[in-house]
């Protein structure tokens, strides 16, 4: 090695020499995600790590997302194994109060109707595959794309890491981006599908839910899942475990840790490694546009499904049901419940729908996990 040698080697190892155009574009995509997260407050907890992971993965030479790179290694340990999304779900369970759902069980159907977004999008992806040349989604890919409509990040990441790892980056980005767009996507659909009178419906105060019911609830859901759809049991089990830690009231130190440090640490690494799947060859394709478009449709269809079932249920229910709360069935906890509350108050300033919307909201999480279980059972 002499000096000119060394300089040549250094020049040959610079990013300027090695940067491919695809990498450059993907770095810009990462920067856009960071901009949306920081400036536009788009799900920053996830999109900052995802965006940054995308940038790191596209830095030439370093190969951080490769099998020897640190992101690649964490990906194998945490995402390939399915462990990270499940840990997130433990934390989510430890933060979720199922009280509003237990107080008014029938509203959980609204969280079922909103899953129409998942399956509608699945069909959309297949249609796109069939009619648009160059787009070629397998049925597994279509299912992974559909799950964006579930509006549940961990569920989407868990399912697509199982069925379509090559689409994971795009799907996670779409899922979290559209969740962030809930306040923009949902209100027009909600306004369009409901009458003035429906929008003003006030619902009866929720009954008190006892501590004991809250303890039984996660166990009942888990047992139901075990009997009906064990393929959903990892997701549902993690959610119920976290919730039982919280509601049991005797292991506060565990539930606090699950809802804070554990979920935070996992979020950092889940975000970085999911972002590290934003490689140019996987993301810069026509298909990604398709995924983004379909994801948008998924949210719209899900919202419409929830609202329409709300209208129907209001017709037949003894106590009045404001169909707006159906929109919260997509999950995106707690954002879509807040959107419902806001839209409701626009038409009736004394109408606080938030707690009523939390029922469909959390049942939407359960509904998406069930839908993911069905897809796993039939396609894995």
């Amino acid at each position, binding site marked *: 090695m002499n000096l000119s040698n060394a300089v040549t080697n250094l020049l040959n190892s610079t990013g300027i020499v090695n940067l491919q155009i695809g990498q450059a574009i993907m770095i810009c995509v990462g920067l856009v995600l960071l901009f949306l997260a920081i400036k536009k407050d788009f799900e920053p907890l996830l999109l900052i790590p995802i965006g940054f992971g995308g940038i790191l993965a596209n830095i030439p030479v370093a190969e951080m997302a490769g099998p020897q790179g640190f992101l690649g290694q964490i990906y194998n340990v945490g995402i390939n194994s399915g462990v990270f999304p499940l840990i997130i779900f433990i934390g989510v369970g430890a933060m979720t109060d199922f009280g509003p*759902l237990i107080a008014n*069980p029938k509203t959980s159907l609204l969280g079922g109707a909103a*899953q*129409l977004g998942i399956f509608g999008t699945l069909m959309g992806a297949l249609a796109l595959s069939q009619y648009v040349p160059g787009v070629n989604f397998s*049925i597994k890919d279509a299912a992974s794309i559909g799950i964006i409509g579930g509006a549940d990040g961990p569920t989407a990441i868990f399912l697509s890491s199982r069925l379509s790892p090559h689409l994971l980056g795009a799907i996670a980005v779409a899922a979290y981006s559209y969740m962030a767009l809930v306040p923009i996507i949902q209100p027009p659909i909600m306004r369009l599908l409901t009458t003035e009178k429906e929008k003003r419906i006030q619902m009866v105060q929720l009954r008190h839910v006892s*501590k004991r019911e809250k303890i039984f609830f996660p166990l*009942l859901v888990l047992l139901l899942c075990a009997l009906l759809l064990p393929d959903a049991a990892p997701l549902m089990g993690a959610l119920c475990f976290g919730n039982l830690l919280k509601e049991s009231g005797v292991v506060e130190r565990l539930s606090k840790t699950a809802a804070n440090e554990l979920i935070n640490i996992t979020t950092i690494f889940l975000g970085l490694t999911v972002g590290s799947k934003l490689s140019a060859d996987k993301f810069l394709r026509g298909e990604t546009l398709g995924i983004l478009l379909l994801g948008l449709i998924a949210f719209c269809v899900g919202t419409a499904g929830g609202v329409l079932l709300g209208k129907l249920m209001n017709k037949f229910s003894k106590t009045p049901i404001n169909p707006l709360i159906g929109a919260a069935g997509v999950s995106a906890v707690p954002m879509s419940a807040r959107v419902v509350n806001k839209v409701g108050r626009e038409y009736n300033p004394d109408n606080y729908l938030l707690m009523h919307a939390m029922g469909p909201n959390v049942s939407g999480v359960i509904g998406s996990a069930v839908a993911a279980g069905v897809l796993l059972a039939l396609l894995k």
Partner: protein
Amino acid sequence: MLFQGLILMVAGMGVVFVFLVIMILMMNLLAVLMKPLARIIPEPEEKKVVKAKKAPIEDHEDIAVAIAAVNSFSK
């Protein structure tokens, strides 16, 4: 393929609703069963809330003596 998607949709939405309907039934049953259960074994609601707030080690009067020595993990 589109047909397969349709099947997935029917099967999927079906299972989702079957699941939720049974869940609703179970919740209703649970609410009904709570009252007799509460009569047999009264729910110590308040005690639990208080307990959750205190550290688990503080529920004996003798603890002030030994606060440095004890820990809340039984090994």
